[in-house]
């Protein structure tokens, strides 16, 4: 079955002429038609564009001008602007928005000859950890259809897990690539802040947002990151740091790698099955020649509250642009300009977005700024120093759980924002420190739901994280497990 193959295998098949990009693309479009009615992982399917791009890719392959990604299908999170195709960001506010330009990430994929299947579902404006905050309805987890897929890149994660696409893009502000990757049993990488341009990626919290690949394996993530990463002058925070050859270092031995296990991530509150799973990953890495070391990150517990000051503060400013005047939703019959602003925003935004705008406005309002925002910035700095001190002490990377639980039932936490916020307890500190981190499948719980293991490295260590994950995946098969749902049809 074509969709069981990795991105690398599909590339080899296209190159050898076993099938064409048009046949491959048609295969995935058929799967989407048959399965996504149940999953709801895609907001817009761009069938006409996909077929057109597939034909162009086949021509490029025939002309000998193909790159590693030419002809391979991809799904973009609906946070990336796509010229001529609706970019909704999961919101009623942008339900009618057709971007006049492409995001950097979309442009890079297009130039590489990739085929865009469509735009994936997500929590509104990337605010959420369960994908229940989308204007287009919740996404279902292919491992258990009554459960959440995680969020905010839940559509991308569910679609890759159900093999509706070989690979997808996601974005991660507090865990939005890694947590859904863990809950859907796929591999997802959040690169270092500044590694991938944010141009054309709708902003939630600009100092934390970062785009990355979501795929079946570390090797597939490496292939896509190679194209996503790089300097772009249109994002002033995008780094000029040289992009290494991510595929070249995948095969290196991890013998002698020093892996830290931060004790704060393994407290008595952690689900024992998840703890056992992560310790089994540690043992596997040890058997490959790595050494294990207990380390301490004392500021870990304060990361979620600091994040929920900084991210809403930035979102309250970033989302001020949605005012019903230049683009997006406008209310009916405004009686004056103020009424236009207030009703357009109130009717256009969903409850969680409003909650975060109000929280952000509160912490930035007169009298509260120093106590919340400045203090949270200082905590952010302190968390960064904590990580750097561990890495400077000869630790190559850290191994932790990605999420405190496996996928929970839909509706379970919708009325309790704090419980929902704590779904990202193990991922948030990484964003505050601007570090790269990867989640990879590491096992299943008693109910057969996937568990993810997180690897965290120093700034710009994506190649090392992908190398460690690839070596782990060469000797395990958790990443090759496919939910029964994916094979419930005959294509």
């Amino acid at each position, binding site marked *: 079955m074509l969709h069981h193959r990795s991105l690398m295998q599909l590339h080899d098949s296209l190159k050898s002429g076993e099938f064409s990009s048009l046949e491959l693309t048609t295969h995935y479009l058929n799967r989407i038609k048959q399965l996504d009615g149940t999953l709801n992982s895609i907001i817009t399917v761009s069938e006409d564009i996909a077929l057109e791009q597939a034909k162009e890719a086949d021509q490029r392959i025939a002309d000998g001008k193909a790159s590693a990604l030419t002809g391979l299908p991809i799904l973009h999170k609906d946070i990336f602007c796509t010229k001529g195709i609706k970019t909704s960001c999961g919101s009623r506010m942008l339900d009618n928005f057709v971007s006049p330009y492409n995001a950097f990430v979309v442009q890079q994929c297009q130039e590489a000859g990739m085929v865009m299947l469509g735009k994936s579902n997500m929590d509104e404006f990337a605010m959420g950890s369960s994908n229940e905050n989308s204007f287009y309805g919740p996404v279902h987890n292919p491992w258990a259809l009554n459960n959440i897929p995680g969020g905010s890149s839940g559509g991308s994660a569910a679609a890759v897990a159900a093999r509706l696409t070989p690979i997808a893009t996601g974005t991660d502000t507090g865990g939005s690539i890694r947590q859904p990757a863990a809950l859907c049993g796929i591999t997802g990488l959040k690169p270092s802040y500044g590694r991938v341009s944010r141009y054309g990626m709708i902003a939630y919290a600009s100092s934390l947002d970062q785009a990355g690949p979501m795929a079946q394996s570390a090797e597939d993530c490496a292939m896509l990151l190679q194209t996503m990463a790089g300097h772009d002058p249109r994002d*002033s925070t995008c780094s000029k740091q040289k992009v290494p050859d991510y595929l070249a270092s995948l095969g290196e031995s991890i013998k002698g790698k020093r892996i830290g296990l931060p004790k704060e991530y393994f407290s008595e509150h952690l689900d024992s099955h998840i703890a056992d799973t992560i310790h089994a990953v540690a043992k596997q890495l040890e058997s490959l020649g790595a050494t294990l070391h207990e380390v301490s990150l004392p500021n870990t517990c304060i990361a979620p509250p600091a994040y929920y000051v900084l991210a809403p503060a930035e979102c309250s400013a970033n989302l001020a642009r949605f005012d019903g005047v230049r683009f997006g939703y406008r209310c009916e019959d*405004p009686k004056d*300009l103020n009424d236009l602003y207030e009703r357009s925003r109130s009717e256009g935004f969903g409850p969680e977005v409003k909650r975060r705008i109000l929280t952000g406005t509160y912490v930035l309002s007169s009298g509260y700024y120093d106590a*919340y925002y400045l203090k949270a910035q200082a905590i952010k700095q*302190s968390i960064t120093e904590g990580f750097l001190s561990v890495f400077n002490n000869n630790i190559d990377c850290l191994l932790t759980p990605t999420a405190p639980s496996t996928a929970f039932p839909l509706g379970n936490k919708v009325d309790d*924002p704090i419980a929902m916020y704590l779904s990202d307890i193990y991922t948030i500190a990484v964003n505050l420190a601007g570090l790269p981190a990867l989640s990879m499948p590491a096992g299943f719980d008693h109910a057969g739901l996937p568990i993810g293991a997180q690897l965290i490295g120093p700034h710009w260590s994506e190649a090392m994280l992908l190398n460690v994950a690839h070596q782990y995946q060469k000797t395990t098969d958790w990443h090759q497990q496919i939910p029964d749902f994916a094979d419930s049809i005959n294509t």
Partner: protein
Amino acid sequence: MTIPNDTIDHIARLSHLKLSDQDKIRLAKNLGNIITFIDQVNAYEIPNPQASHTQEASQPLRPDEPFRSDLERDLIQQNAPAAEEGLYLVPDVIETSSE
């Protein structure tokens, strides 16, 4: 913790959000819980607190040159809820006397 109504009204006004009475009841509790949660930031003690934004402190510059293209404007304004001759339309902002 429950947030007083006048505080909710104040931040809703600053946020340009119109809240229904039902929204306010729900938000009073939810926002109260969120603020109790983030209050941990206030109470947390760190040695030598220093605020910092990113690990790279460069500030790239570009030439300060205007970029004008009518085609681009037209394309951009295809997303406008109401536009005419290159201008965005909004309700009257200057009050007229109704003598």
